[in-house]
């Protein structure tokens, strides 16, 4: 990228005036120039802030049942009303965001971890190892998602954040694994890998010290896209009753509780806010992902 950047500058004849900028700096500049990506970034920051600092915005405990105050309409004390169990909707919205974001980010990171290790080994070694490992990926890509999740949840016999993260990453890894394999296959042909081989570096050192850092830009894009997908997936699973238990506050859980035929019509204030939060989160993460992809694109002009 640095060479590319220099090349670009040489073309415009600016090499003398400006000092050489690192590829990271150029990427950052490109990212900052993408207005939608920056807007997405700040929206996400705001969402993270209100969920992390939830106690500042609401005095209520999201898991404390108050049977004297069920199904209240919005009021000064309860800006979004309360639900059928007397939970304060605003408290559940804010604290629920913590859970949703944590689960989505953790699941994305875990999926990437599996994907990088699996794809890295497959792509680096090639040959029959690659062939065998990719056949298995093909099978898992075709594996029906819902039965698999149901079976895993039944086997673990509990539901909760950790189980959900495990289940999602166990089902979602084949896509990233195949993607990372493609990248490692390309990197394997690079001169610096040949260089590392000639000075006698071990295979694992080459994979993790030399090749992995060069996949960071693709990884960042993949992680952000996955986070967006998993926010929706987690909410969907919880909505189906297959994700988080209803005792844990979450956006999907709020939707699931408020989406019966009576509440949906009469209490839009109980389900529209979590729906909007889900959309807003996914939208901002998608814009960030788009921005990152363009920013890291080595062909992009500075």
């Amino acid at each position, binding site marked *: 990228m640095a060479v590319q950047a220099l090349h670009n500058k040489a073309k415009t004849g600016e090499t003398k005036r400006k000092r050489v900028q690192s590829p990271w700096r150029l990427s950052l500049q490109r990212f900052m120039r993408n207005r*939608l990506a920056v807007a997405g970034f700040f929206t996400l920051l705001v969402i993270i802030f209100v969920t992390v600092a939830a106690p500042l915005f609401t005095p209520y405990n999201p898991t404390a049942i108050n049977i004297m105050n069920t199904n209240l309409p919005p009021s000064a004390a309860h800006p979004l009303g309360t639900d059928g169990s007397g939970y304060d909707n605003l408290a559940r919205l804010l604290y629920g965001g913590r859970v949703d974001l944590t689960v989505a980010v953790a699941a994305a990171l875990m999926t990437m971890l599996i994907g990088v290790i699996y794809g890295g080994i497959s792509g680096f070694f090639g040959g029959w190892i690659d062939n065998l490992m990719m056949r298995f990926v*093909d*099978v898992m890509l*075709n*594996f*029906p*998602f*819902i*039965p*698999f999740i*149901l*079976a*895993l949840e*039944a*086997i673990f*016999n509990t539901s909760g954040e950790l189980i959900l993260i495990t289940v999602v990453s166990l089902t979602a890894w084949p896509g990233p694994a195949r993607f990372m394999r493609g990248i490692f296959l390309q990197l394997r042909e690079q001169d610096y890998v040949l260089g590392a081989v000639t000075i006698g570096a071990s295979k694992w050192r080459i994979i993790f010290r030399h090749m992995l850092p060069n996949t960071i830009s693709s990884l960042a894009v993949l992680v952000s896209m996955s986070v*967006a997908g998993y926010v*929706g*997936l987690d*909410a*969907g699973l919880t*909505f*189906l009753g297959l994700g988080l238990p209803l005792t844990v506050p979450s956006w999907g859980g709020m*939707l699931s509780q408020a*989406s019966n*035929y009576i509440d*949906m*019509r009469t209490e*839009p204030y109980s*389900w529209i806010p979590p*729906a909007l939060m*889900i*959309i807003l989160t*996914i*939208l901002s993460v*998608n*814009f960030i992902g*788009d921005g990152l992809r363009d920013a890291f694109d080595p062909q992009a002009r500075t």
Partner: protein
Amino acid sequence: MATYIIRRLLGLIPTLFVITVIVFILMHLMPGNAFLALTQNPHIKDAAEVIKRKEAEAGLNLPLWQQYVNWVVNLLHGNLGTSYQYDEPVARLIGFSLPNTLTLAITAEIIVLLAGIPMGLLQASRVNKAFDVSTSFFAVLLYSIPSFVFALFLIYIFSFTLNWLPSFGTVTPAVPWSGDLGDRISHLILPALALALPSIAFYSRLTRGNTLQVIVQDFVRTARSKGLRDSRVLFRHVLRNAIIPIITQFGFDIGGLFSGAVLIEEIFTWPGMGELTVSANLNRDYPVILATTLIFAVTVLIGNLVADILLAIADPRIRYN
């Protein structure tokens, strides 16, 4: 071509074998079985006896590999077994659910293609103009809304507020026009839209990107300089070339829409494969779990195969042998 298709179909067998073996193992790892529910039935006095007899009848006492072999042998004879929870042939349950899911998924797919591809083409032909920028932004917005959230908004707006369309089931019960074509279509619109909208956005973005790569090529300029109308160039010359990656995506999506339908079916109480799968898994109804898994897997695999075949039709340069 025929030999290619046959070879591909034979190639599905190992994949299906591995998938069903994994499901088989997972299914038996799940705690409990379907017959344990009988202990909750007050009319059965000697529940333990009955459960034992039922388990023996279903062959659950045999070693696992034996059970799997029996299942495969039965499958090859066209027998999917009998559901534990409904005591009905699995084939009949599937025969009832599958058409409903297919109707939903195919309608959604048609909406996606009819709306997404022309939208992408129009965006690309007016690249960076107001139409392109605004609809592209709108597409990202649509793409960011999970289909089940869409479903809730659609129900709230079109069923509850405007009272235009029904929000559950496939027909209106107890009215003279129940089951009419119009009645069925009115029940189909909302779930199909909810399933289709996020994909429309995805397809329009995909089409836009592909079209932009094709539109600068020489043959397009030649077509224009021959004096062809813009619309003809766009739909005849550009689309034919831009559509190729979309076909591949379409093949992948057939399976995706099928499983995406699960959530939508749940919300609209649409009696399809999704409901069948979920209840079978929750009730440990082994024959139904295996059958639904098989159908989901076959759909995905057939989708990929159909995509490859369509690809060869759309692009004469691709030859399979």
